């Protein structure tokens, strides 16, 4: 067990920024999904799942293709 902890400590310089960036991006996108309920396609639950569980490709797809604005809610 002690061995595992040492291993974790050794990789902490990598893990801390990685986790901050990935979790930060996921949470930021999730908040955006909830606060702007207008999508080009799909619904809120779908986008929340995509954004939270597909790391960094999920938020990217949401911001580039999924995010709609208030005025173009035609579909």
């Amino acid at each position, binding site marked *: 067990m002690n061995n595992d902890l040492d291993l974790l400590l050794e990789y902490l310089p*990598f893990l801390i920024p990685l986790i901050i960036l990935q979790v930060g*991006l996921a949470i930021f996108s999730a908040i955006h999904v909830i606060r702007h309920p207008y999508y080009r396609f799909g619904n809120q639950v779908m986008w929340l799942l995509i954004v939270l569980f597909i790391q960094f490709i999920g938020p990217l*797809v949401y911001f580039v293709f999924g995010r709609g604005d208030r005025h173009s809610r035609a579909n």
Partner: protein
Amino acid sequence: MNQWFGFFKKEWFESVKTYKLLLVVVIFSILGILNPFTAKITPVLLEQFMPAGTIMDLPEPTALDSWLQFYKNVPQMGLVVFILLFSTMMSKELEKGTLVILLTKGLRRSTVITTKYMMAICYWTLAILLSFTITYAYTAFYWDQSTLQHLFFAASCLYIFGLLLIAVTLWGNTYFATPYGGILVTFIGMIGLFITAIFPQSKSWNPLELATAPPQLLTGDLLPADVFVSYLLTLGLTLVFVVLTVVHFKRKLV
């Protein structure tokens, strides 16, 4: 020139507002950290998953492994992400008709294309610089990098290759005026490059060489002179595609 900078500024604000800056910074930082991390953790993981008692002689990871990861992740993941992000550069404006007012007010059509391409170049520069610096910093911290050759030239190869792909995407996006047009054209272009790469004779000029050669450049198996032709050809093709886009857009009905 004033007009050019005005439109450039508008493009910049738009890209920040559509979260492009955020996504590029976060994703390429993640990629930058992942490279040395994967290089360092792979032998440890292998050891953990091996059944007890197996004796394996795993070599210690070196700086080269970290850079190999860089040249695997950034051309694949990084470029795909980047092309996706910038695949709607023109089609968005053409679909929404937001350019009509600006163009009737006297904005030159070539300005539109050149600023958009310039903006994408700025973002690509930022992306490469970011992941390169982060990988460089981690690698320098953990390993000795003095054995590697042409470190910066190898990175510039990848950078130039990215410029070509962005130009192709911009052309496809303008020509077909749909978000998927640019991606499709780039995808077909990549397949074409891979098919030509099957023939060994194409090795001396194929632009794809710029994306695949960097590891050999680092070890010293290839010299910068060996990729010189592909380097120039890629730059030339980039220019051709940008000019093609401008020429096509000048005749396009907006």
